[in-house]
């Protein structure tokens, strides 16, 4: 054997070793069951055997009855990866990584979704994202008064509360009653947000804004019209939940009166005594202002006496028997997780119903289990209605969507889109375990992307059309192109380490769409890769097309 031949053999052996080794590395990297640690809150037995399963059974039966009564055909149940994608988008604002999907696949099939929910509930991204979503309803997205309002501080505090799984009623009670400085007592930003700068009344958070916000956010009703006039269109009902009456202007202002003693100063938010607190307003047909006494618009027996006004209100709002309080968060949590609420609009649930039976089961369970948000999330995630396909062989109408006989499709929100692009170009999750540089890069990119893409603000469940700006940003924007371009680790990594082109195509599909390609798709793209000549170029092209596809842009 001459030296040239020896060299050739050695090179071939080396090449084979590299191929086998690379494939092995990619395979180990993507499939290792030990790559992700088990979630701390993962208790398979308790999740399987305890009441979660029973309650989910009741919810599913209620939906079955509802669909049957309405004569609605029901979509099939979606596969676990699609449900995992929905859960990731709803709870963390991004999509699962390839590594996470591979680990999820290795869980027993009957435990996958419970396992996945536990993993997400332990994930700091979930705490931060849920805090942001809830804060939109509670303080909005605008900047607010300079210095007096610290939205970031408020979000950070809220994220900590969610991480510690604080009782929801305690959380809201603190929000409504806290005193102090906006930095040391972040909950008071709920009040400082409602100070109107340069109004001449900067020492008083505006009771009208606070009333509208409190009722919408915490009891899920829009009574803002009552600020100016009685309800004459039969749209707002208050009073006895079993026999309600039309709302009156005084109902609004009687609630506003609970904020009549709240003051803001350099020492923070504080209350003056009940005796000195007052709320005056010139009602529609009056000639002058009148003093209006604090009163609640329904269930007055739930309002305690002998405590500061804001505490009285907070106790009434969060009382276990005040069901609108629990209904409001059940409806909102469903909306955050699914993109659409059980009852639309999300913050206008009539006092007297009718309510979907499944919603009432969730409300009962929420109250019985000490206002446990994590349990509520588990129940929703495991319910059949949440896990249905968004497509069906039969015709799907708006009735099917409203009745939740199909998973309602919704466009990805701006931060979900940015989060998904960022994650799609990385095989590993960009979470707390990721390098700080990677996290910072994601934060910067997402912020810039959302600014350009357009933020819908707090009316986040009102779907609107896609804009040309958004489409151009997706086609030609810097984020997409740098993520999939030469700087991207994933394109080169996948192209170089995949043992064959088919594996590369499958990996990109998993990264971007959280599913494997169909046979037809594999066939099509194998041919396209051949035309491209270079595998890396093919991977980049495929990434671009998948990220710009309709399937990527919808939560389905």
């Amino acid at each position: 054997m001459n030296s040239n031949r020896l060299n050739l053999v050695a090179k071939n052996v080396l090449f084979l070793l590299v191929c086998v080794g690379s494939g092995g590395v990619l395979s180990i990297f993507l499939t290792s069951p030990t790559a992700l640690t088990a979630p701390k809150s993962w208790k398979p037995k308790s999740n399987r055997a305890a009441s979660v399963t029973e309650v989910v059974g009741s919810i599913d039966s209620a939906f079955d009855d509802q669909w049957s009564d309405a004569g609605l055909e029901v979509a099939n149940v979606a596969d676990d990866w699609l449900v995992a994608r929905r859960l990731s988008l709803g709870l963390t604002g991004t999509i699962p990584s390839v590594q996470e999907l591979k680990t999820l696949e290795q869980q027993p099939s009957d435990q996958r979704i419970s396992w996945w929910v536990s993993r997400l509930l332990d994930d700091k991204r979930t705490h931060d994202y849920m805090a942001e979503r809830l804060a939109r309803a509670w303080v909005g997205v605008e900047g607010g008064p300079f210095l007096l309002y610290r939205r970031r501080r408020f979000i950070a505090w809220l994220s900590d509360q969610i991480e510690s799984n604080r009782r929801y009623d305690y959380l809201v009670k603190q929000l409504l009653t806290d005193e102090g400085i906006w930095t040391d007592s972040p909950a008071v930003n709920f009040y400082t947000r409602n100070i109107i700068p340069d109004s001449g009344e900067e020492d008083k958070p505006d009771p009208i804004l606070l009333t509208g916000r409190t009722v919408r956010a915490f009891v899920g009703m829009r009574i803002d019209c009552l600020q100016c006039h009685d309800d004459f269109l039969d749209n707002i009902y208050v009073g006895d939940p079993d026999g309600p009456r039309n709302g009156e202007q005084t109902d609004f202002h009687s609630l506003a009166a609970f904020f009549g003693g709240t003051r803001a100063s350099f020492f923070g938010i504080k209350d003056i005594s009940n005796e000195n607190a007052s709320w005056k307003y010139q009602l529609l047909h009056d000639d002058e202002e009148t003093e209006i006494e604090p009163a609640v618009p329904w269930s007055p027996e739930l309002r305690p006496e002998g405590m500061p006004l804001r505490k009285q209100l907070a106790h009434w709002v969060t009382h276990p028997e005040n069901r609108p309080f629990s209904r409001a968060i059940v409806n909102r949590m469903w909306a955050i997780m699914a993109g659409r609420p059980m009852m639309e609009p999300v913050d206008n649930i009539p006092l007297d119903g009718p309510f979907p039976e499944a919603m009432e089961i969730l409300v009962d369970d929420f109250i019985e289990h000490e206002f446990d948000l994590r349990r509520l999330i588990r129940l929703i995630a495991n319910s059949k209605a949440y896990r249905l396909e968004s497509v069906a062989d039969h015709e799907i109408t708006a009735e099917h969507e409203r009745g939740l006989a199909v998973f309602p499709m919704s466009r990805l929100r701006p931060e979900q889109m940015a989060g998904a692009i960022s994650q799609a170009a990385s095989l590993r999750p960009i979470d707390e375990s990721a390098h700080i540089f990677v996290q910072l890069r994601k934060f910067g990119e997402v912020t810039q992307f959302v600014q350009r893409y357009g933020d819908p603000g707090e009316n986040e469940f009102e779907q609107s059309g896609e804009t040309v700006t958004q489409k151009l940003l997706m086609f030609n924007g810097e984020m997409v192109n740098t993520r999939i371009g030469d700087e991207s680790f994933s394109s080169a990594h996948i192209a170089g380490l995949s043992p064959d082109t088919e594996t590369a195509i499958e990996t990109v599909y998993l990264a971007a769409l959280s599913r494997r390609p169909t046979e037809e798709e594999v066939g099509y793209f194998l041919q396209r890769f051949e035309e491209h000549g270079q595998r890396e170029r093919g991977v980049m092209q495929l990434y671009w097309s998948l990220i710009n596809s309709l399937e990527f842009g919808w939560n389905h």
Partner: protein
Amino acid sequence: MEDHSCGSIEHIRRRTLLKMAGLSGLSWLTPLGTALARHSEHNPSKRPLSLIVLWLEGAPSQLETFDPHPDTEIAAGSKAIKSRAPGILLGEGLVQTAEQMDSISLVRALTSREGDHERAIYNIKTGFRMDPTLKHPSIGSIICHQLHTDRDRTVDIPRHISILPGQMPGRGGYLGDQFDAFKVNDPVNPISDINAWVDDSEQKSRLKDLSFLDKHFLERNKNNKAVAGSLGTHQQQAALKMMSSEQLEAFNVKDVSESERLAYGDSPFGRSCLAALRLIEKGVRCVEVTLGGWDTHANNHELQAGRINVLDPAFANLIKELKKRDLLETTMVVCGGEFGRTPHVNPLGGRDHWPHGFSMAMAGGGVQGGRVIGETSPIVSKTETKPKSLLKDSHPVKDIHATILSQMGIDYEQELDTPIGRPLAVCEGSPITSLLDV
């Protein structure tokens, strides 16, 4: 589920909204639409077709711009110059604008209840006060929503554009994001995101793959009538059409002769005013151009003078060129900020926020030039508790909106349904007829 929101009538759901948007989007892409439009470009009613808003963000001082009170205590040394319109004085820096005052009128006693920048900007751009329950559309969004003529179908580029966008560029609000202003920066630079990162053949290759993927997704969702109207790819087609449109040339002010460009002043704002004119010529409905830096809590006179030096040539030349091109009759121009500044100068030499009587300049589109509507007092006590009582013929901000909308032939009193079915008046003001009467 029944809707119990205020004024509930038939619920306009997102599907309906999106279908409407989809249909309108598709229709203007058709060759038929273009052909029809060519036959109807004339404007027999001579109503204004477009609006240009020169947005002075930060709030200019009325005393140094459009409402000087020379030789009074509140002038604090500011001087005034005569303008071409008899009896109308302007701040001393507005030399070129003064020459165009026979085409410009001033509303000098505007009032609002908002003294905070964010809330006041919202108020001026929408005509409504901030409301946590919904987001109102800006004036440009309403115009684009309401006006759909054959002329609009010839426009490949967005019909609502914000150049040098400030804190709050025009939003579609409850009308939908599709009515948001398209944002561009200094037109001396290329428009963001308009060029593909790859060459034509590679772009074609990408689009071929995209078409393959979307075809399958649409096929899979063919039974989903609930989203059928909103799933489509019309915005994709619109984006692609825009990317290759010759109308993009309107943004390119670099190729305009230097003398024509410099007439607007050598500034991003000047160049943007030139681009606004060129965009209007292409059929764009509303262009907003922002000039910031007016928030002069300290050193007011010097800082205002700096901003006026930028504003003056741009504003004046815009009016001059609109007239020269016979476009002023069909283009309304509005120039102003979110509020005025205090009559009294603070210890730092600044003027603070003053929503109790400030100015807006208006021209074109039926606004008669050389008029002054309203009057502010030259004597305002620091402790005045009812400054509005010192005004003559004052108008709330919403009257500016009513004036613009009514001139454009839009029923400003009509009610539109928000997505939750709440009927809401497009505008709650009344037109300022004294600006318009011939």
